[in-house]
């Protein structure tokens, strides 16, 4: 597959078209219907949650949030391939991959409400918290990959980054080291066309992003990032290759960020309606749904029904997160050290005196 879709040839790996019709029988993956339906539901849940979080944010109930809207297929395809023992190293726009790993919506909400407990992931293992410094997570991924190799474990790391992240020095360091030391990491670039407002055309002079793999001496492929079948096939192949050969793979998944960069961003300032409409045709959920409807695997009624269920579930978990007990201020003093250093003791003492003073004023 990597030879057939060499990034030097500027080929894009695609399996279904915009209407959900198979255009590439050779690479159509074997996925049983149950698994396919689950993939669709997972994408729909992620999208529903995503849109609702933006609404909550506008209501002042949660802080800044980066929507994954439009990029669900890449993340769900990864979740389909990813095993419990595999590692997930996210950037910050991977809601569906998170949910796929076993993170709960409540934990996601807690994180964006400012609770550290939102990064505890009680039901998900081998997962790193969100990484805000762009591309820094790739180094962590390579490091984990090196450990896997060193200890001869049967694991793969799935590391995410955006198109903007490929301009960071960390991207080069991670891929270069990974190539030299041959670590089992699948680097997935969610090329969503914009890093905040900078279009990908201003991001790199390379023909595409996958082509960068050539320079690092690793395998690379450019995939239609809104085609769940192509993504599943590519990520599965990459994962198996990384495991069997212990080598990194670079996947460029071409997609579109339908929402804003974060809730503090207004995309209408730097992109056109025509462009948005064009990408609407390629929407990943729409394409999979078309495939399911065409093959009588799914109905509109089921769709509406499950959407209502999802909305209620999202809201239920959101309200749970809203009622999460606030941290005690004492934690500030007690959290880090087993034995409290003197300066902290003094500050804690000051704080206690302040509380007494406050109490006395009542």
């Amino acid at each position, binding site marked *: 597959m990597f030879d057939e879709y060499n990034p030097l040839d500027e080929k894009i790996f695609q399996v279904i078209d915009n209407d959900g019709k198979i255009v590439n029988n050779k690479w159509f993956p074997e996925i049983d219907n149950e698994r396919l339906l689950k993939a669709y539901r997972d994408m729909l849940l992620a999208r529903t949650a995503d849109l609702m979080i933006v609404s909550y944010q506008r209501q*002042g109930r949660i802080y800044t949030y980066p929507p994954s809207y439009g990029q669900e297929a890449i993340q769900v395809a990864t979740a389909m391939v990813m095993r419990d023992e595999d590692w997930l190293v996210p950037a910050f726009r991977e809601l569906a991959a998170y949910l796929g790993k076993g993170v709960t919506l409540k934990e996601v909400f807690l994180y964006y409400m400012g609770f550290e407990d939102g990064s505890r992931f009680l039901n998900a293992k081998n997962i790193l918290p969100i990484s805000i410094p762009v591309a820094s997570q790739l180094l962590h991924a390579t490091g984990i990959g090196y450990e896997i190799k060193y200890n001869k474990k049967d694991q793969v790391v799935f590391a995410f980054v955006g198109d903007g992240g490929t301009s960071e020095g960390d991207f080069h360091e991670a891929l270069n080291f990974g190539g030299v030391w041959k670590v089992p990491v699948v680097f997935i670039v969610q090329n969503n066309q914009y890093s905040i407002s900078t279009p990908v055309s201003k991001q790199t002079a390379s023909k595409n992003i996958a082509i960068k793999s050539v320079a690092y001496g690793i395998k690379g492929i450019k995939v239609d990032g809104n085609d769940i079948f192509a993504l599943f096939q590519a990520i599965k192949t990459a994962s198996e290759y990384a495991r069997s050969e212990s080598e990194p793979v670079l996947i460029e998944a071409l997609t579109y960020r339908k929402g804003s960069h974060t809730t503090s961003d207004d995309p209408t300032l730097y992109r056109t309606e025509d462009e948005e409409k064009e990408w609407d045709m390629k929407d990943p959920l729409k394409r999979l749904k078309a495939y399911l409807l065409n093959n009588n695997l799914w109905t509109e009624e089921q769709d509406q029904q499950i959407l209502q269920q999802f909305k209620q579930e999202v809201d239920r978990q959101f309200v749970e997160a809203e009622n999460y007990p606030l941290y005690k201020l004492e934690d500030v003093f007690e959290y880090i050290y087993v034995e409290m250093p003197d300066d902290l003791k003094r500050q804690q003492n000051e704080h206690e005196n302040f509380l007494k003073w406050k109490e006395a004023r009542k």
Partner: protein
Amino acid sequence: MRYIFNFPDIGEGLEEGTIVEWYVTKGQKINSGDSLLKMDTDKVVTDIPSPKSGTIAAIYGKVGETVRVGTALVEIEIEGVSGAEAVKEAQKDSSVEVIEEKGAAVVGTIEVAGSRARLPASDEGMSEKINEIDKPIKKILATPVARALAKEMRIDINKVTGTGPAGRVMKEDIYAYLQNSLNIIKTAKINIADERVEIKPLTQIRKSIARNVSLSKHNAAHMTVFDEVEISDLIREREKYKEKFIAKGVKLSYLPFIIKATTLALKTHKILNAQLDIDNNQIIYKNYYNIGIAVDTDEGLIVPVIRDADDLTIFELAQKINEMSEKARKRELNLEELKDGTFTITNYGSIGGQFSVPIINFPQVGILGVGRIMKKPIVKNDAIVIGNILPLSISVDHRIVDGAETTRFVNQIMDYLTDPVSFIMD
């Protein structure tokens, strides 16, 4: 239960937004998640959805109006929950602080979005305003600068309304409070209906002049020393350089010489460049010499400050004075150019008058009044000759500056002015 939905900060440090469009009207039923209005902010133009289902009980703000973050957008009457039940509902949530309204029976609750406090209040009458609710008594949040300022001005900071984040009292709030409190100062009753009087509101400048001079007169113990100095030599020197300065576009008055003499004298008599910190029983000496110069403008007196005046040459001082006076008259001075003065000079002599009892620019402790130069008969070498006399009046805060020190200070200034060459000698 009445729910007040405040405009949330939807853009990381947003302060305000402008209402573009309202989607709801009073009395309309809405579901949570329904859009209430469209808002234009620094970051985004976006719909603001409702966090609650219920009936719109009140709408605040019209299209085109600018709304500050944290102020009410709508009140929503939430169905099925009212009265005591609502109080219980509110108290159930352990993370929520319930604050008793003073002196009123609790008959309902108002839940305020965005803050984690709920203020129980009456749910009678759909049109009731939120600001009628008494504010809870808490330790007031304030910036250190505001606290220091309040202390210095002897203001009870708890009475000041804060406009900073989370109601923090800012420096500006202290000034605003002072301005308001000025209006409360009692004055003799005047019959406003009397046709023979005319009522004009105070300008901002007049308000602050009134405030500052009252503050000074009420706090400092004023004492004034008068003297006269013969400056024929200085007049000659000034005449010599006047044209040269004009060629360079700068008008040379006597003020640069007086400022120069004053800064030199302040360096010897540092107490006149100091400030009294009576609360801490200490005197603050300042090792910088920022001289305020009183400028007469159409709207009243303004005192721009020449920073580090001791470092400037006569030419630079002349330049600065020209620049500052011009800016003062055009109202173009910024706050930086008005603050941190350590001593003030008022040069009324350019208009007329000889002696005065100038009011200290509090919390400074000294002010030098400069009168008009007049030809007067003087005794020189036991003969009566015509002298050029410059009258000086200096007021000091006697709490820390005594008469002897003041006189020595004036003597030094006069020595410099009598012998212009001495400026460069010291």
